[in-house]
C-alpha cells in the first residue's frame, strides 16, 4: 500500500501526458527511462524506513548434507541482533513453498539439498552486524553423496532428493529423482525411419545460464498495527508470491499487503520467492521493518537458473529434403527443488520439434531432481534448449541432403494450418519461411572491417582491446537459426489478468487511471497500458497506479504474456468504461442528436465522436462530477493439459517466431569470437510500441549471444558447488561484445489476440544462440555440440 506511510524509495504513480496522440502503435517513451540511465531510479534495494533492521541469510556451504545441529546462541548474544530464526522457529505448520507445489523449505529442515540453501535468518540493526551474527551460527553438517546428473540420479540405491513425494507427478515417473516426464508421440517414427534417405543424430549439451539481472533480490517488510505486514518487493507476480507467503506467516492474504518496488530486471529469475518470507518473518518477529538486500554473490544462490540440458536428437529426411521423422530425448537438470521444472518439461517436449512440419515424432523430455542449484524460469523457458539442438540438426541434415541450409529450413517450415506434434493446429500466421527469407536477404556487413589506414582497429576484432590479433587467424562464418516459443501459460492453466480503469474529469480535462498488479520489470507495460487507454478512451493524460495487491492478479510477467493478457485486460476494462460513459452520454444528450442512437460512437480527443468524425459531446460535459470505474478479469482462450502418455492436446495459447542470421569472426588460433552482426526478423502480430519491441528483440538477442559464447554457471561435478558466483567469472556481454542488430519486424495479426498482437519478449532468445553457434561452426569446421563455446573448445586444448 503505497500510501502516506510508504517507506522512502517506493514507487509512486506515474502520470504520462503526451503531446502526440500516444496511442497504440506509437513509440512513446518510458517514464522511467531517463531515471534509470541517470542512476536516479529507486530500485527495491534503495528503500529505507525509519528504525528498520537488516536481515541476513545463513546459507549452506555444501550441496548435500544432514544437519546434525544448529547452535544460534552466540549469534543471539551479539549486541545489535534482534532475532535469529531457524526452521524450528517458523510460526505455523506450513513450512514449505513452491510455485507449482510446495517442496521448498522456508529454512532447511534436517538436511540441505543444494549449495547455498537458506538455513537460518538474522535481523540486526546494521547489515554488518547481521552478517557477523550469521557467521556465528554454528551448524554441524554430515555430508552426503551428491547427485549431479541422470546417471547418479537414477542409479540403483541412489539417495532420494525428496523422500515421500506427494506431488501430482510423483505417481507417473519411473524414479523419484525424476521430477516430471512428458512424452509427445505422433505418427509412426519406426515406419518413417525406413523411408528416410538420410538420418542424422546428435548429442548436445546446454550449459546453466543465469538471468544476471542487474538489481539483486531485495525488499522491505513493514509490520502493521493490525498484525499483518506490508511488503515492498521486486518480483514478477505479486499474487503468486502472496499465495505462497501468507500461509507460512499464518496470516490471511488480506493482511499481507504487497507493493511492487523498483525492479532491476527479472528474465524469469524473480518468479520464485527469494527473501520475501524471510523478511516478513523477521519483521513480524521483531515488530520492526526489516530490509534484506542480497549482494551479487548471494544473488547467484538466491534465484533459480536456466536448466542445463542434455539433448539426444535423430532426424530423417528424404533425398528431396523433406523431414520424415524426429526422435528426441531431452534431459533437463531441475536441481534440488521443483520450481517451474514441470512446465519447462512441457515446453521442451511440445516445442522440441521446432517450427517445422514433421509428421512422425517421438519426443520425451524430463527433469531431474539433483543436488545442483535449483533451475526454473528463464526467458525462453525450455524452448531455448531444444532450439539449440534442433537447429544444429537442421544444418547437419541440410548438408547431408545437399541443400542450402536456409532453403532446407524453408522447405520444411511450418505455416498456418500446420499440425503441431501435440496435435494442436497452428491457427494464426506462422511466417517461418518468410522470416528466414528476410534475414537471409539483408545485406552482409563488409569483410575485414578492422582494417584502416592506421593499422588494425582491435575493437573490431576478436579479443577487442585485449589486442590479441591484428587479423591473424581470423575467419568469418555466417549461420542461421529460427525458433518457436509459446506465449502465455499453457497446459490448461487459468491464465487471467485483472485491470481496474477509472475515468473522471480533473481540471476540466478527462483523465484515466489504470491500476493493475502487473510487475513492470522492464518489458514496457508501463507505456503500453497508457497507450491502450489513450486509444480506447480518447484521452491524453493517463495515470498508472503502482502495482499492488489491492487490485486483482495480473498474472506473471513472464511467458511473453503481459502485453497480451494484462494489455488485454486493460483494453477490455477500457471498453467497459467506454460503454458506461456512452450510456451516461446517451442519458444526458441522447435526445439532442440522432447519432447517439444510430452511429458507432468513439472517444477521441476528449470528445464523443461518431465513426464519421462528428463531435457529439465533450467528455467533460458527459461525466461532470461522475467517475466511471471498472475492475474486470480477462482471459485468453483456454488451453488443455497434454495427454500424459502421448502428449496430445491443445496446450498452447499462441506461438511466437523469430529468425536470426549471425555473422561472426573467429580467431581460430586463440579460439576467441567476435560477433559482428546478429540480424533478426520476428513477427509480433502488432507492435503496440515499436521502440519497445525492437528493444526486446535486441535484448533477447544479446542474452542468446551471451549463452553462445560466455555465460555459464559452472558447478563442480564432484561437490555440486557453484564455482563462479560473481560477475568477475560469470561473464555477460559488454557493449563491445554486442554486435549491430538490424531488426525486421513483421506485423501479421493473430485474430485471437488483442489488436492481433503476438508476445514478443522471448522468441529472439531462442534462435540467437544456435545462429551464433552455426556461424562459429561455419568459420571453424568444428562440430561444437555444446553451448556456451569456450576458447578451449575452438582450439582443441
Amino acid at each position, binding site marked *: 500500500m503505497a500510501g502516506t506511510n510508504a517507506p522512502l524509495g517506493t514507487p509512486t504513480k506515474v502520470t504520462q501526458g503526451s503531446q502526440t496522440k500516444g496511442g497504440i502503435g506509437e513509440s512513446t517513451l518510458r517514464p522511467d527511462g531517463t531515471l534509470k540511465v541517470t542512476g536516479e531510479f529507486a530500485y527495491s534495494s534503495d528503500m529505507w524506513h525509519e528504525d528498520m533492521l537488516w536481515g541476513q541469510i545463513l546459507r549452506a556451504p555444501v550441496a548435500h548434507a544432514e544437519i546434525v545441529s544448529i547452535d544460534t546462541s552466540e549469534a543471539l548474544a551479539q549486541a545489535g541482533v534482534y532475532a535469529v530464526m531457524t526452521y524450528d522457529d517458523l510460526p505455523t505448520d506450513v513450512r514449505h513453498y513452491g510455485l507449482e507445489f510446495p517442496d521448498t523449505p522456508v529454512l532447511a529442515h534436517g538436511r540441505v539439498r543444494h549449495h547455498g540453501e537458506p538455513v537460518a535468518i538474522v535481523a540486526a540493526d546494521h547489515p554488518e552486524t547481521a*552478517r557477523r551474527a550469521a557467521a556465528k551460527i554454528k551448524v554441524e553438517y554430515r555430508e552426503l553423496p551428491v547427485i549431479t546428473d541422470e546417471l547418479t540420479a537414477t542409479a540403483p540405491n541412489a539417495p532420494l532428493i525428496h523422500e515421500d513425494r506427494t506431488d501430482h507427478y510423483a505417481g507417473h515417473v519411473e524414479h523419484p529423482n525424476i521430477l516430471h516426464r512428458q512424452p509427445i508421440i505422433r505418427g509412426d517414427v519406426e515406419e518413417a525411419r525406413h523411408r528416410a534417405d538420410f538420418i542424422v543424430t546428435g548429442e548436445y549439451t546446454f550449459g546453466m545460464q543465469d538471468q544476471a539481472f542487474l538489481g539483486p533480490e531485495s525488499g522491505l517488510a513493514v509490520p502493521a498495527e493490525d498484525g499483518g505486514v506490508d511488503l515492498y518487493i521486486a518480483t514478477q507476480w505479486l499474487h503468486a508470491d502472496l499465495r505462497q507467503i501468507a500461509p507460512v506467516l499464518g496470516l490471511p492474504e488480506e493482511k499481507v499487503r504487497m507493493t511492487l518496488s523498483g525492479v532491476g530486471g527479472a528474465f524469469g529469475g524473480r518468479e520464485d520467492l527469494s527473501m520475501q518470507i524471510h523478511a516478513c518473518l523477521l519483521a513480524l518477529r521483531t515488530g520492526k521493518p526489516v530490509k534484506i538486500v542480497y*549482494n551479487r*554473490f548471494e544473488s547467484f544462490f538466491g534465484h533459480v537458473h536456466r536448466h542445463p540440458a542434455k539433448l539426444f536428437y535423430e532426424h530423417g529426411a528424404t533425398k528431396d529434403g523433406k523431414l520424415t521423422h524426429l526422435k528426441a530425448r531431452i534431459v533437463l537438470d531441475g536441481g534440488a527443488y521443483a520450481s517451474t521444472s514441470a512446465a519447462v518439461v512441457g515446453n521442451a517436449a511440445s516445442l522440441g520439434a521446432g517450427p517445422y512440419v514433421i509428421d512422425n515424432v517421438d519426443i520425451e523430455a524430463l527433469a531431474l531432481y539433483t543436488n545442483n542449484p535449483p533451475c526454473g524460469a528463464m526467458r525462453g523457458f525450455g524452448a531455448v534448449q531444444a532450439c539449440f539442438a534442433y537447429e544444429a540438426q537442421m544444418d547437419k541434415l541440410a548438408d547431408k541432403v545437399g541443400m542450402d541450409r536456409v532453403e532446407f529450413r524453408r522447405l520444411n517450415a511450418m505455416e498456418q494450418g500446420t499440425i503441431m506434434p501435440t496435435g494442436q493446429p497452428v491457427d494464426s500466421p506462422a511466417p517461418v519461411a518468410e522470416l528466414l527469407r528476410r534475414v537471409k536477404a539483408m545485406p552482409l556487413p563488409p569483410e575485414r572491417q578492422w582494417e584502416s589506414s*592506421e*593499422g*588494425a582497429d*582491435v*575493437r573490431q576484432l*576478436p*579479443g*577487442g*582491446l*585485449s*589486442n*590479441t*590479433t*591484428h587479423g*591473424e*587467424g581470423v575467419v568469418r562464418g555466417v549461420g542461421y537459426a529460427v525458433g518457436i516459443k509459446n506465449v502465455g501459460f499453457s497446459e490448461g492453466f487459468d491464465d487471467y489478468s485483472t485491470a481496474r480503469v477509472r475515468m473522471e474529469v480533473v481540471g476540466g480535462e478527462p483523465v484515466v487511471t489504470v491500476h493493475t498488479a502487473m510487475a513492470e520489470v522492464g518489458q514496457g507495460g508501463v507505456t503500453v497500458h497508457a497507450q491502450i487507454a489513450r486509444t480506447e478512451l480518447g484521452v491524453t493524460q493517463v495515470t498508472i497506479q503502482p502495482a499492488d495487491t489491492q487490485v486483482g492478479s495480473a498474472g506473471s510477467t513472464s511467458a511473453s504474456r503481459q502485453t497480451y493478457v494484462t494489455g488485454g485486460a486493460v483494453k477490455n476494462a477500457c471498453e467497459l468504461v467506454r460503454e458506461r460513459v456512452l450510456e451516461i452520454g446517451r442519458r444526458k444528450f441522447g435526445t439532442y442528436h440522432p447519432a447517439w442512437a444510430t452511429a458507432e460512437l468513439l472517444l477521441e480527443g476528449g470528445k464523443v465522436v461518431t465513426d464519421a468524425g462528428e463531435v457529439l459531446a465533450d467528455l467533460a460535459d458527459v461525466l461532470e462530477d461522475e467517475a466511471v470505474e471498472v475492475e474486470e478479469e480477462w482471459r485468453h482462450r483456454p488451453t488443455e493439459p497434454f495427454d500424459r502418455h502421448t502428449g496430445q492436446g491443445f496446450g498452447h495459447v499462441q506461438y511466437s517466431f523469430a529468425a536470426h542470421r549471425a555473422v561472426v569472426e573467429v580467431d581460430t*588460433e*586463440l*579460439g*576467441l569470437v*567476435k560477433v559482428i552482426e546478429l540480424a533478426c526478423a520476428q513477427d509480433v502480430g502488432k507492435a503496440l510500441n515499436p521502440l519497445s519491441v525492437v528493444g526486446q528483440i535486441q535484448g533477447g538477442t544479446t542474452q542468446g549471444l551471451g549463452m553462445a*559464447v*560466455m555465460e555459464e554457471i*559452472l558447478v563442480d561435478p564432484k561437490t555440486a558447488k557453484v*564455482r*563462479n558466483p*560473481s560477475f*568477475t*567469472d560469470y*561473464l555477460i*556481454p*559488454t*557493449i*563491445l*561484445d554486442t554486435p549491430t542488430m538490424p531488426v525486421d519486424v513483421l506485423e501479421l495479426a493473430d485474430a485471437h489476440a488483442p489488436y492481433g498482437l503476438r508476445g514478443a519478449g522471448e522468441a529472439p532468445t531462442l534462435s540467437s544462440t544456435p545462429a551464433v553457434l552455426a556461424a562459429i561452426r561455419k568459420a571453424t569446421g568444428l562440430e561444437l555440440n555444446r553451448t556456451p563455446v*569456450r*576458447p*578451449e573448445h575452438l*582450439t582443441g*586444448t
Partner: protein
Amino acid sequence: MDFLRPGSWEEALAAKAEHPTAVPIAGGTDVMVEINFDHRRPEYLLDLNRIGDLYAWEVGEDSVRLGASVPYTKIMEHLRAELPGLALASHTVASPQIRNRGGVGGNLGTASPAGDAHPALLAAGAEVEAESVRGSRRIPIDDFYTGVKRNALAADELIRAVHIKKADGPQQFSKVGTRNAMVIAVCAFGLALHPSSRTVRTGIGSAAPTPVRARTAEEFLNAALEEGGFWDNGKIITPSVAKEFAQLCAAACNPIDDVRGTADYRRHAVGIMARRTLTWTWESYRGTAAHTEGVA
C-alpha cells in the same frame, strides 16, 4: 576495522610501521572487491588517497618514475610514447571507471598473477621503489614477485613509485579473456624489443603462480637475432625462429586449470601471443627504429 588516513607520506610510513598488518588502499579496485566479497577483513585500512605525490610521474633520461597511484587512464593518455607496453596493458584493465581509479601500485601490492601491468613491467624492465621508516630501496621487478599474491615487500614497507625503463624499441601487450572487454586475464603476454642492448624481454601473466619472464625463450631469441644479424639487416624473422620462440614461451608457463580456462589452453595461447607480438614488434622495428608505439 580501523581506517587510517595519513595526510603525508611520512605519516603513512609511520602508520605502516606501527600497524604492519594494515592494508594500503588507493584506488581500491582490488582491496574493496576482497572486502565486499568477505575474502578479507583487515584490521586496518591505510588510505593513501590524501598523498598527492603518489599521483605524479616524472619522465627522466632513461626511465619514468611512475607514482604508485597514477591511474591507468593517465598512463594511456600521457605515457604512450615512453611506456607503450604498459599503455597497451592499461587499455585492457577492467572498465573506464576502474581505469580512472586503479594504478600500478595496487597491481604490485596485490601481486596477483592476473594483474595486467605485470607482463608489461617485466618486459620493459622496472624497479619498485619501496620505502619504510627504515629507509628506501629499489627492488628489481624480476625479484619482486615471490609467490601467489606475495611480493618482496617487508611488512612495514609501502610502494611509493615504480621506475620503468623508457622504451628504446617497439613493445607489445596481448591478453586473452573470454570477453572482448572488461575481463580478467585467462593469460597475458608482454614483449619489448631493446635495440640499444640488442635484447628482448618478455612477461607472462596468469600462466604461472607469479608473473614470470620466459627467460629461455629470451636467450634463444637474443642468440638467434644476433647470429642472423637481424638487428642490423632488419630482415623478417625466420618463421622457424618465431616458432621456436613461441614454443619456449609456452614452455615457460606453469599454469593451472581453473574456472577461467584450462592449463593446456593457457600454454597454447601464450605461444600464439608470443609469436604474434614478436611479429608485430619486429615489423615495427624494421619499419622504423623510431616507431615504438603499439597499435590499439
